[in-house]
């Protein structure tokens, strides 16, 4: 590509931190034991897993025994939902939202097809939930309330702690997909009524392929991946030691970087938005008052997201349109549709998601080139001409 890469797609996946790579490396070579086996290799490995479990637990205010290592955020989400249903076979109802990640949304849609009752809560134009709706949706038949902590596309933050209280008082379990919130929002599970929480390493600067499901002590649990009794029988499959060690390190770093995320990174994001909003017919999606510090979903009306991305890509700038997961097709993002973002804007929406590795220079480079890109695409677009002709 020639250009240095400006990576602004951290909500999709993030760069592996050098410290994380360093922490993992010994476990590819010298040590190759199996945490569950008898010989001393296994013993060393059990030690490092214990340390990693503690590092993860500390970041979210949990006990080490409450941490189950999984292969990804998706698996954590699927496992939590399945477990809630299997351990409460008499309850057939789930409450979730229309703006969840597909790992929750698709799983719940499948359940609905299998005869479970699922309430998909709507959001308003700002992407917020109505807590009155949430409360009303939970019934005696509700096995699980699964509401994400922060949205991956818009960064909008939900009041999951309050929702957990509602769930608890109605006898339902509460799960939160906090894949995007961890490391950006302070989380102290001990002080909440949240029963299960999912997180994913590769949003926290580990490689892709490791996640965590937190399950509060005493919460009934049924495993999803069954086999050997790794993870105290809660997740079978030989443990991915290097990534688990890496995730421990990443959680330690995340705790250290949380302040920077909420000051310097936030300032960069705000600078980016302020600059981009100068482009005609552009707008931010998602409540600016309840948002992750690193995320910006911005729409440029009358142009198409993929085209913008490609032009950015030519300049070495990585971002995404909608979520990376769905950008294979040109359907406008389900999140923006749920928010009622008009089609003209939903199609032309770009998500920039920053990390502590970004610099002001990078943001200024984007601001320098974006107006030209939008102009070129609008010049080709039949609608823009119409609009400017009529409007």
């Amino acid at each position, binding site marked *: 590509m020639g250009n240095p890469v400006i990576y602004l797609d951290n909500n999709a996946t993030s760069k592996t931190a050098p410290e994380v790579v360093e922490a993992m490396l010994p476990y590819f070579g010298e040590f190759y034991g199996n945490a569950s086996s008898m010989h001393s290799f296994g013993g060393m490995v059990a030690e490092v897993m214990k340390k990693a479990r503690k590092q993860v637990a500390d970041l979210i205010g949990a006990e080490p025994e409450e941490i189950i290592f999984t292969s990804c955020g998706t698996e954590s989400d699927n496992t939590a939902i399945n477990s809630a249903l299997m351990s409460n076979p008499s309850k057939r109802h789930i409450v979730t939202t229309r703006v969840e990640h597909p790992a929750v949304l698709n799983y719940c849609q499948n359940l609905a097809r299998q005869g479970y009752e699922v309430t998909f809560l709507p959001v308003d134009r700002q992407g917020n939930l109505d807590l009155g709706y949430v409360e009303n949706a939970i019934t005696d038949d509700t096995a699980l309330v699964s509401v994400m902590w922060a949205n991956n596309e818009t960064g909008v933050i939900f009041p999951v702690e309050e929702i957990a209280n509602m769930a608890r008082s109605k006898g339902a379990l509460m799960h939160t997909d906090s894949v995007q919130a961890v490391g950006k929002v302070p989380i102290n599970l001990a002080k909440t009524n949240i029963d299960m929480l999912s997180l994913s390493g590769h949003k926290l600067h580990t490689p892709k392929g490791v996640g965590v499901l937190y399950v509060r002590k005493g919460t009934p649990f049924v495993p999803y991946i069954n086999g050997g009794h790794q993870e105290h029988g809660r997740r079978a499959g030989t443990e991915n030691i290097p990534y688990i060690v890496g995730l421990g390190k990443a959680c330690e770093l995340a705790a250290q970087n949380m302040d920077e995320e909420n000051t310097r990174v936030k300032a960069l994001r705000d600078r980016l938005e302020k600059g981009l909003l100068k482009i005609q017919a552009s707008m931010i999606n998602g409540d600016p008052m309840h948002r992750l510090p690193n995320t910006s979903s911005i729409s440029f009306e*009358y*142009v*198409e997201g*993929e*085209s913008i991305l*490609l*032009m950015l*890509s*030519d300049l070495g700038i990585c971002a995404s349109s909608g979520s990376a997961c769905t950008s*294979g*097709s*040109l*359907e*406008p993002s389900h999140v923006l549709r749920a928010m009622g973002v008009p*089609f*003209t804007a939903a*199609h032309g929406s770009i998500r920039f998601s920053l990390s502590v590795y970004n610099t002001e220079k990078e943001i200024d480079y984007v601001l320098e080139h974006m107006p030209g890109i939008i102009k070129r695409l609008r*010049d*080709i*677009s*039949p*609608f823009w*001409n119409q609009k400017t002709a009529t409007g």
Partner: protein
Amino acid sequence: MWEYTDKVKKYFTEPVNVGEIEKPDGVGEVGSLACGDALKLMIKLDDQGRIEDAKFQTFGCASAIASSSALTEIIKGLTLDEAEKVTNKQIADYLGGLPQEKMHCSVMGEQALEAAIRNARGLEPLPSLEGEVVCQCFGVTDKEIEKVARTN
């Protein structure tokens, strides 16, 4: 990113024949803003009835924009009868191929051309074929895809 050929990239970043023709002889419009893809094709005929100029405006992905550029290049100099035979596969071939998932973007070109030719001949626009909408992108129906698939 899609595995686009260099030609697709070129016709996307430097599209040719963009814009509008004053007093066109034929105009074809397909797609809509709601669908996320739309193409407006305008053609002008010379005395012999050959297409002497073609211009387009596209709202859509890179393949859609590149396909539109390619289409206008292909049809210049053709008679309406000749142009009528241009298929989406020809458009894709002209670009050195399109990713499988993006073949339908060239279909939009073929449809816009068909509409522009009908318009130039003074015929009513075709009602869109009936059938279930399978491609949310621009409301291609399964019957239309079947038709295109058979010609490919």
